């Protein structure tokens, strides 16, 4: 079994708390961390031709922003503390994509915050965390 922990962060307070909890655990067990930022995206949405033409550009800037503003600063800080850290940015449905990343990076468990979604949103679309818990094949730790 691998000694890797996947942490879902999104720049929110909840994500930060999940990361802190995961870091404590990683230090105790000498595990390495995979920090992931999933950008909510669906291949089945509708756009104007102009938006399509700009899409590539927008995607690149979304990925860069996630790396520059969230993933890289966290990773850098953790590496200074002596932890082994990888980062990954993906587009997709959040719960589904997290599972794909977990498989791809061969992690043994997932840490996620009770994401900062509005109550309205999770009532309509269901909560990402709940979807992940229900369908994941790995231990998932939800940090409040």
């Amino acid at each position, binding site marked *: 079994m691998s000694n890797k922990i996947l942490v879902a962060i999104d720049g929110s307070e909840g994500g930060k708390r999940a990361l802190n909890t995961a870091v404590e655990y990683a230090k105790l067990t000498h595990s390495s961390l995979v920090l992931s930022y999933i950008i909510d995206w669906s*291949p089945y949405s*509708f*756009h*104007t031709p102009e938006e*399509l*033409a700009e899409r590539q550009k927008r995607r690149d800037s979304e*990925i860069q922003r996630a790396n520059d503003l969230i993933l890289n600063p966290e990773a850098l800080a953790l590496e200074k503390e002596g932890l082994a850290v990888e980062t990954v940015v*993906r587009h*997709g449905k959040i719960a589904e994509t997290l599972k794909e990343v977990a498989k791809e990076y061969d992690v043994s468990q997932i840490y996620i915050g009770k994401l900062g979604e509005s109550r309205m949103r999770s009532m309509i679309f269901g909560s990402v965390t709940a979807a992940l818990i229900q369908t994941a094949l790995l231990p998932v730790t939800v940090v409040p």
Partner: protein
Amino acid sequence: MKKLFLLLGLVFLPFANVYAGIDETINNATAPIAAFIGKVVFFKVPVFGAQLPLVVLWLVVGAVFFTFYMRFINIRGFKHAIELVRGDYSDPKSHGEVSHFQALATAVSGTVGIGNIGGVAVAVTVGGAGATFWLIVAGILGMSTKFVECTLGVKYRQEFEDGHVSGGPMYYLRQGFSDRGMAGFGKFMGTFYAIGIFIGALGIGNMFQSNQAYVQLNTVAGGALDGFGWLVGLILAAVVFSVIIGGIKSIARVTEKIVPFMAIFYCIFAIIVILMNVGSLPQAIANIFTGAFTGEGVAGGALGAMIIGFQRAVFSNEAGIGSASIAHSAVKTNEPVTEGIVSVLEPFIDTIVICTITALVIGTAQVADPNFANGAKGVAMTSAAFQREFSWFPLPLAFAALLFAFSTMISWSYYGLKGWTYLFGESEKGQTTYKLIFCAFVALGCIVELGPILDISDALVFLICVPNILGLYFLAPIVKREMESYFARIESGEIKKFK
């Protein structure tokens, strides 16, 4: 800016009666021009008593050739097209890029327009029930043309330094011919096409749409808007203006989201209406088949029905015109062939599904009551067919027509813009000039009558299929090579499904 237009409208309202004559004046001025352009492009040769416009022959021969040359890709590729749209072959790592579904949806939004509702009625009025049969045949053949042009669109698309992409016939004509050692000719063809799509955008993608939207509104309003086309035109132009110049993207985004649902809503109700007239259905279908080969009561007989059907099909699904290739070229893929395969679904959805359904609604109504439309033409005729079953239907239909027209106008404003920027470069000032011209034509479309509008827009759009299809012939071997290599790699398992 929008407020300004509203204000203008309010100021002019009291003088409206004085200005009611404006429509007629402008109409009289444009009709002869339309007739002239129509005559040149639709140069007709008499064949066995029917008048065959050469340009229609050009398109159909092209579609037949590509169907055989690509060994029935329109039928062979169908299942694979659905797999691609479903994302079976999409690498999760490339998520966030334009998906096959998104490109298809955008291209379909651009083609599903008033033509699907009104154009079919025109075809049935002029070409009889049999025109529907040829419309479907043209749709099936058109799938092959779409395959070729959309594959090329992606293959030769241009990526700019800032990351935005431009593609379409003008780029593949220029680059493709240059690759075959005919750089000068390619340049000429690219420019020819760019001019054509720019002018065509003002017709098929603009005036025809706004005109039919106005006719619909007027019908629903019970003729209260007679003579006020200029006012409706001004308002429509203001909304288009606010989207393409004012940058109020939210309006466009909302429309893009509603249009697919409207299309589904339209189809569901159409099927319900057909089922309510199910007694007339066998006769309506029989009329389509017999009309196709006898052409009873149609000028030029069966051939006349065939010509009208082909003409309306191409006008509706735009295969051979190259417009969809512009929308599809935004997709980033290592396999341009995949985009071509996906695009075969467009004529299928647009012509084979939606147009056929409309034709059956009209056909069953005709069987039940030959004079149901009371002489109404275009969208109004379709509306009357629906109204027989649902008296309230004209209102939502008018709304749907308005949205179809609007989304087609937005898509085409972009296609035309790409022609413009190809010709005049990417400068902001130039783009704004183009957009202003586009808005002016939106208003103009509501003012002139349907006849001349159809002539102008048909003529201008068909004109650009000349360089496009000529280019497709030259570049077809490249597409065929890519297609064969692609299918061989699917077969060998080199290209794998991700799902």
